[in-house]
């Protein structure tokens, strides 16, 4: 045990001595930079450069793999969720009080948007864009049925929905339903909505998902479309999605 401890002490002492030498070495380099040292330093720099040239691409590859892998997982989950999930059957009431289902629109694309007629800004803006995009689609617009589904069935009766959508375009069909029917279609489309009382009045506003859903002639989900793009961009995206199917 004793010799071992001596060894350890000697090793420690040796290490301290080595550290001291290194410190001296550093002091020497810092204090005076002789030509020889400079050459050595340049070599070190070259070596470290070589090390860095490998390190950065390696890191970049790792980063790309991690992000790419994550994105792939995200997209594949998203796609499988879309294929298996978004949309599905619904039963609602149109502006004339007639019952319609998802099957009513088979053979045509459905462009589905959720909102409410009390909504003063985002919903009119979106419906304006949708109406203008349909105009730009020309004859192809006949293959697209835009649906405006209310998330506020308490206030949005069939008559209210009809008058509201008609103000934007006769092509847009306003749909309402019972709370259960609206709840079911909102769940199917993964739509979030929550009411908020407007201060000082009995009015309330509703936060709601603001995505346009393009559904195929078979009723299956095709693509989500942004609502904050221009009518031209929206029309181009719809046309592209239609021709790719």
């Amino acid at each position, binding site marked *: 045990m004793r010799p071992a401890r001596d060894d350890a002490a000697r090793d420690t002492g040796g290490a301290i001595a080595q550290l001291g030498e290194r410190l001296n070495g550093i002091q020497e380099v810092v204090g005076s930079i002789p030509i020889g040292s400079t050459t050595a330093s340049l070599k070190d720099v070259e070596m470290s450069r070589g090390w860095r040239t490998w390190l950065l691409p390696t890191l970049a590859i790792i980063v790309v793999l991690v992000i790419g892998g994550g994105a792939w997982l995200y997209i594949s989950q998203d796609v499988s969720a879309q294929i298996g999930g978004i949309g599905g059957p619904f039963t609602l009431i149109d502006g004339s009080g007639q019952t319609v289902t998802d099957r009513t629109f088979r053979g045509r694309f459905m462009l589905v948007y959720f909102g409410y*007629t*009390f*909504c*003063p*800004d*985002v919903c*009119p*803006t979106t*419906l*304006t*864009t949708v*109406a*203008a995009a349909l105009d730009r689609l020309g004859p192809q617009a006949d293959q697209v049925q835009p649906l405006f589904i209310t998330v506020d069935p308490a*206030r949005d009766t069939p008559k*209210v*929905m*009809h*008058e*509201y*959508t*008609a*103000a*934007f*375009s006769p092509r847009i069909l306003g749909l309402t339903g019972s709370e259960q029917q609206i709840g079911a279609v909102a769940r199917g489309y993964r739509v*979030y909505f929550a009411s*908020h009382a*407007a*201060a*000082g*009045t009995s*009015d309330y*506003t509703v*936060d*709601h*998902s*603001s*995505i346009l859903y393009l559904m195929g002639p078979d009723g299956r989900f095709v693509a*989500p479309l942004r*609502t*904050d*793009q*221009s009518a031209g961009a929206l029309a181009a995206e719809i046309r592209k999605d239609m021709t790719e199917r």
Partner: protein
Amino acid sequence: MTYLTLTAVLLLLATPAAAQTPAPGIEVSQPWARATAGAGRSAAVYFTLRDHGAADRLTGASTPVAGMAMLHESTESNGVAHMRMLNAIELLPEHDTVLRPGGLHLMLTGLNGPLRQGQTFSLTLTFAHAAPVTLTVPVLAPGAAGP
């Protein structure tokens, strides 16, 4: 980009108006509202504010056509549209504050009747410092994207 383009367009449109009204204070340009669609229980008013004086705040509005006018902002996060009420909209000197569809707007509720395309109505804006400004707002089509 759309916002920048819109701002640029509004700036261009606002320039002649600015030349006509050299008085200091708050200049309001390009006011418009959408005609109410259907039952028409709410409406949004849009305009551009330019503060020619010190920093100020738009604190409220009133109009004979509606029971209440509220400052609102539409925002979108993770695909969900939210609308929040603002107590005031900050105005910076010589800086355009644009109320536009999908962003800042004045929400009118308790409308006395539907707003019809082609009609105009009076609107008074109140500020923390500057004198109130009364303007005439033209009503455009329900599907109008701007003046």
